């Protein structure tokens, strides 16, 4: 293509601009602009505002693949100019009409931000910014492959480090003391100099790695290093595992109380996710009422061990004695709720289980069951577990409990997956009718999936109740189910490492960005959609699913479900 493709350029630019407009109008730009990333000139609001524009620039240049650098650059410049239009219209409109009484986020702060605090003369500045950024994207896309990869990677790493600077702060404080932090950070933001140094160092490392990889590929191609590299990779795996193990054990000491709490949350959702993974990932039964079993676990633990008036255990139970009972109760309810839905599939199962979850929550909240479950007041004064004389009452200590639980559940999950039962689940997931014809007892297999999933969830609930000390019906809403479901999907259905990665990404990282809690569910929504559209198998997919989804793609178009 020799000439510039105006239509693509303008369309991409407008899409990028509409993304910027969207984030501005829902208030995210303003909320995120309070958090500086590098110095005080680049903040998270800019990331939202110009991310889409940058992507538009890159994509536009990519659409002109065979063209010269000049045409690439010019086309992305056009896209950048187009990207400025939607936001500019908003600014013009907001200056003439009172919008804030309807669109609560379109306020003076936002307008000041969009015009770089320069009033109407800032309008031109906004256009300049979008064009320059899109141009940068276009030029970036014209770089040769190696540089493109390494520069892009190190730039993203710098941004990620800046976004999660509180981890950096915490680790550096523990290791080198507080003053060291001020060397590289300015408040929460990276100092421009340290960002630049980090960028250069990372780029250097990545280029070296790239060169080594090319060399290694040549070696592999010659076939000489095949055996050698296999042994090396085994060694590397062992080292990796030992390293991760040590890191997990010392984590609370390095990370401090707040980050331990975050780790506890991650662990709790790993537990939930692994349980749900058995039901959804292995057995293919989409359960949206999974929170019900979590609630059963928490309430059973609460009622058995509380020192308050709701105690039904007669003072006999401590955490450890109650734990087996909690799991049994959850398993029992798993079977009871599994029974009626044995004949249902897919969407219907999802909605009915969602109904179950809501019924349980509404019942827990009602006056009717107040004598047992405490109604809206919940169950109070649940004692912390005591482990050989150590009271597990801080996040650091509870972390070990949840870690032990997660490891146990992960181990059981792996064993189950490779067992006869696991293969039956997967057969059932692929096709119930065929599975039944092969002699699989569907009733038993399904009920076992529900029961085991419920047991894991109940365990998570019990630990949750013991950690918080007080439980309320409001803690057991649909969002927990959705959270657990999202994390196993993002991680990769049926994949155990996927559950862990998903929990870190969807539970851990948002906890670190507490300031932006308001927009957490919005991000989930976007993530779920984008994930399903582009990578339905998740980040760390299980082999079977990857194969299945790619088979679907290979199917002839027009073959409807």
């Amino acid at each position, binding site marked *: 293509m020799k000439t510039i493709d105006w239509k693509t350029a303008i369309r991409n630019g407008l899409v990028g601009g509409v993304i910027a407009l969207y984030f501005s109008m829902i208030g995210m730009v303003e909320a995120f602009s309070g958090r500086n990333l590098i110095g005080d000139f680049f903040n998270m609001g800019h990331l939202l505002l110009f991310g889409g524009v940058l992507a538009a620039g890159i994509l536009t240049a990519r659409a002109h693949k065979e063209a010269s650098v000049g045409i690439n650059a010019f086309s992305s410049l056009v896209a950048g100019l187009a990207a400025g239009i939607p936001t500019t219209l908003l600014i013009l409109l907001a200056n003439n009409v009172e919008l804030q009484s309807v669109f609560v986020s379109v306020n003076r702060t936002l307008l000041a931000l969009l015009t770089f605090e320069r009033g109407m003369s800032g309008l031109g500045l906004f256009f300049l910014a979008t064009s320059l950024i899109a141009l940068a994207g276009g030029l970036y896309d014209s770089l040769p492959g190696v540089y493109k990869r390494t520069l892009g990677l190190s730039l993203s790493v710098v941004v990620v480090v800046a976004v999660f600077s509180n981890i950096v702060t915490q680790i550096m404080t523990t290791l080198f003391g507080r003053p060291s932090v001020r060397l590289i950070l300015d408040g929460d933001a990276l100092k421009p100099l340290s960002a630049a140094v980090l960028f250069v160092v990372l780029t250097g490392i990545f280029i070296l790695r790239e060169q080594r990889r090319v060399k290694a590929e040549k070696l592999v191609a010659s076939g000489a290093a095949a055996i050698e590299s296999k042994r090396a990779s085994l060694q590397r795996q062992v080292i990796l595992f030992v390293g991760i193990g040590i890191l997990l054990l010392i984590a609370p000491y390095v990370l401090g109380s707040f980050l331990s709490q975050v780790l506890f949350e991650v662990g709790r959702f790993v537990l939930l996710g692994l349980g749900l993974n058995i039901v959804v990932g292995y057995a293919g039964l989409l359960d949206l009422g999974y929170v019900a079993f979590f609630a059963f676990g928490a309430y059973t633990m609460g009622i058995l061990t509380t020192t308050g008036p709701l105690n039904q255990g007669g003072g006999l139970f401590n955490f450890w004695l109650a734990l087996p009972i909690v799991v049994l109760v959850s398993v029992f309810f798993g079977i009871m709720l599994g029974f009626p839905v044995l004949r249902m599939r897919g*969407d*219907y199962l999802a909605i009915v289980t969602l109904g179950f979850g809501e019924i349980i929550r509404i019942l827990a909240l*009602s006056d009717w069951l107040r004598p047992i479950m405490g109604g809206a007041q919940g169950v109070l004064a649940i004692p912390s577990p005591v482990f050989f004389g150590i009271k597990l009452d801080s996040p650091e200590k509870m972390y070990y409990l949840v870690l032990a639980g997660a490891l146990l559940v992960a181990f059981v999950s792996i064993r189950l997956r490779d067992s006869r039962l696991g293969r039956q689940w997967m057969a059932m997931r692929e096709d119930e009718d065929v599975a039944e014809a092969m002699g699989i007892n569907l009733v038993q297999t399904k009920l076992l999936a529900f029961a085991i999933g419920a047991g894991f969830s109940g365990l998570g609930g019990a630990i949750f109740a013991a950690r918080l000390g007080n439980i309320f019906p409001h803690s057991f809403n649909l969002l927990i189910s959705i959270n657990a479901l999202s994390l196993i999907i993002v991680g990769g259905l049926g994949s155990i490492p996927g559950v862990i990665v998903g929990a870190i990404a969807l539970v851990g990282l948002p906890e670190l960005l507490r300031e932006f809690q308001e927009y957490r569910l919005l991000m989930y*929504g976007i993530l779920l959609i984008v994930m399903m559209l582009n990578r339905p198998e998740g980040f760390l997919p299980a082999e079977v699913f990857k194969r*299945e989804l790619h088979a679907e793609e290979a199917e002839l178009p027009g073959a409807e479900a």
Partner: protein
Amino acid sequence: MFKKTLARLSWVDIFLRVLQLVAAIVIVYGLVTTFTTARYSSEQWATLAFAGLAQGSIYALIALGYTLVYGILLMINFAHGEIYMAGAFSTVFLAMYFDRNGFLASNPLVAIIVLILFSAAISSGIAILLERIAYRPLRNAPRLIPLITAIGASFLLQYTFRGLFGSQFRSYPEVSILRGTWTILGFNVPIVQPVVFLAAVSLMITLYWYVERTKAGRAMRAVSEDKAVARLMGVDIDKVIVSTFALGGALAGAAGVFNGLFRPQGVFFLMGFFPGIKAFTAAVLGGIGNIPGAMFGGLLLGLIESLGPNAVLEGLGIPAANQLKDAIAFTVLVLILIFRPQGIFGERLAEKKA
């Protein structure tokens, strides 16, 4: 082998049969105790019933959106409740504006029609966008995937609207001509209830006529029967699907305004969740994919929900039964799906495998 299968199946059947029996006994016992103790007067029952019909007609309008989309794509548009919310929430600002400048008081009929059209336009716009961005690329994907996308879309819409319009509750202005009561069958009924009911029913009849009698409706039915053959007959499948989403969205938007007239309070970004689930229940109750079924299911669910707490639960001696109102809809859903998954009018489910 066959004998074993039979024995195993009947075991589940026995369990379900017992469950059915228990449910029936509980309901009948509750009804009997309530009516033998004569806790409420017929006046009170009538009040509940009329409110239930008005609420039910709103459910029915939303349920039509589920049913239309399901009929064509065999997909449950989980985000449909949010499409309803989008219309209702956006229109509340226009309604407030009309109230401030006196248009609502001087020309109430015109104003309400404008509100309904506006809300329908917003909702159907959102529905079309959703189909274009989120559902169309997944048309041939395994069934779990569009469902998860829909859950994502549901959150995206909720929190987008929260970001746009804020998280506080808004309420529709009161319309003066809808104040006061009519006397129907000797009972005093607030005017707004029969008005909402009649308006909703006339919309449904229009829809039924559209689907059964017009060319576009015939195309819609053809696509729902068999996409491949419909394509061969020259039907533009994409266009039909888009228009189905648009139609379902428009009905949901209209339902949003009716809801605002009937229950002015409580307009906020999460308002779509319960109506969405309940309308889905209504659609299943009538037989999903079946248009008259959705209308009937909606009305029935409205009645059950409004009469149920007093008629059944209080009879069982449950205190503060109205707290469990939302649980009733879910219980109906669960019971229907267990005992008659094809719904009251439906037969198609059995063939197409839920």
